């Protein structure tokens, strides 16, 4: 086992450091609890700008909770969150959040274009009419996810992969700098996964930052630049090449990953 592992939770260099104003998402001492059980305990994280970062950990490790707490969707016990150095409330226009597909009722009476236009709410407000330019922007977002023919389709008629693409189009319509995605590849077809990853890499090429909760360890090295390993506490953080190691995974997952699985991953990483 390599002993050069950087373990944030064991008192790494960043603990106690102030927030990094260049980071699109910087957490300091983030603690969240459901009832009396901590879901996240004193988590520090500094996601790099202009990169694709994966949040990885076993089921129940607090991955989705981390995103929700960071964006202020659920109450936190303590901790500080900054987005590009600002408090989250002041940076809402720079964040596009893609929730888990299964978190909404797809039988809701609305159309694809309506959902994408929800991404323009902060510009439209209560009363402003949806101008031709706003509509064009939403249609363009749909085209970028390969759904241009589906604008007036009822959302209940979409497949899982199409639903995920619509959610992504809504995020694109927000025209943000930071894209935060909760399990974007869960239950989607291979073609959609390919389309989404190409799109996210395109965003990165434009200098945008992407942070995604990810659970397929086999694709981490191919998709992401940066990993953040979490299991209630922050376990490790850094570039994929140096941080996504069998030792760090073993530590994060405890006994929950079979040794053979770890060996295969070690091969994938190299």
């Amino acid at each position, binding site marked *: 086992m390599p002993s050069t592992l950087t373990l944030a939770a064991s008192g790494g260099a960043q603990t106690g450091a102030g927030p990094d104003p260049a980071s699109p998402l910087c957490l300091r001492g983030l603690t969240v609890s459901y009832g009396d059980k901590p879901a996240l305990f004193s988590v520090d994280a500094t996601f790099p700008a202009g990169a694709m970062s994966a949040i990885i950990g076993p089921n129940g490790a607090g991955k989705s909770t981390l995103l929700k707490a960071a964006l202020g969707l659920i109450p936190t016990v303590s901790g500080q969150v900054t987005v590009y150095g600002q408090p989250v409330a002041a940076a809402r226009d720079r964040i596009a959040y893609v929730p888990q597909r299964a978190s909404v009722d797809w039988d*809701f*009476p*609305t159309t694809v274009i309506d959902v994408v236009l929800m991404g323009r709410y902060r510009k439209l*407000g*209560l009363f402003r009419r949806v101008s031709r330019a706003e509509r064009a922007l939403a249609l363009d977002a749909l085209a970028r996810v390969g759904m241009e023919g589906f604008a007036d389709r009822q959302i209940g008629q979409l497949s899982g992969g199409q639903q995920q693409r619509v959610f992504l189009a809504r995020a694109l319509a927000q025209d943000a700098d930071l894209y935060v995605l909760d399990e974007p590849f869960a239950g989607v077809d291979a073609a959609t996964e390919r389309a989404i990853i190409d799109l996210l890499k395109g965003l990165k090429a434009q200098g945008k930052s992407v942070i995604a909760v990810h659970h397929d360890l086999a694709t981490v090295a191919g998709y992401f630049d940066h990993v953040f390993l979490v299991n209630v506490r922050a376990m490790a953080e850094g570039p994929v090449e140096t941080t996504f190691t069998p030792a760090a995974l073993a530590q994060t997952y405890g006994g929950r990953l079979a040794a053979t699985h770890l060996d295969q991953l070690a091969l994938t990483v190299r």
Partner: protein
Amino acid sequence: MGADFVQFSLTPILIGILAAIACALPGNFLILRRQALIGDAISHVVLPGIVVAFLVTGTVAAIPMLLGAGAAALVAVVLIEAIRRLGGIEPGAAMGVVFTALFAGGVLLLEQSDTSRVHLDVEHALMGNLETLIWLRAEGWGSLLDPVALASLPPELPRMAVVAALIAVLTLIFWRPLKLSTFDEGFARAIGLPVSLIGLALVITATVAAVAAFDAVGSIIVIAMFICPPAAARLLTNSLAAQVWWSVALAMLSAILGYVLAGYGPLWLGFSNSVSAAGMIATVSGVILGLACVVGPYRRRVGVAVGA
């Protein structure tokens, strides 16, 4: 239709329509949020609130009634939360226990207290007194332009009109945030919408509708109108705006058809007495929902698994 109609049927029908619309509008969002039971709970909880307000103030004026009902709703919410947390049972069951218990308590209070000099009893609580809300001073359609006759309109009519108009305006103003936070709460929070406040405001709006309608038409109509017209409307369209319009139309249809059937239906069938208008309006709304379930063009979508 002449003077008789204006005198005896116009105001009850109008009050029925306004009450139905005031309840159906928030009902659309409650149903989509899987909170349809809240409308049911509110309309039950209103009874003990109103009885206590009457016992304290000795009047059945609108403001004390509203405050009493509001306080009862608050007590109910606290009780539901307490039972859910301490008992560790699901919210639907906690709600069911609390609102039936409070309603039963209200019935007992009502029976034990001296409400004989005002129109407040169990039957009134359930059925309202729609048929008695007549406009005695009216002499025909011309009375609608006569300020003296208008002054003697049953006060329930303007009150219900103001509440229905208020709810319609609020629905229009907050349409986008209501729709957005109902569809995707997480996203709505992420873009900075006050999601909890919107949910609370919706429940408060439903309470105001329930209290105003309760006084005029009783809790049966309130419960039926929160659920039946919006649920039937959902089966007729796949657009939220169209659903809300349909729910208003079906609420109106239920009120008119129910009132007419209650007044004349039994006579047509050879019976000598008419039946309760409130009961018939609620029944008609249920029949409309049943028809929508059978023939509604979008009925297959309801309950279909994602991706199926």
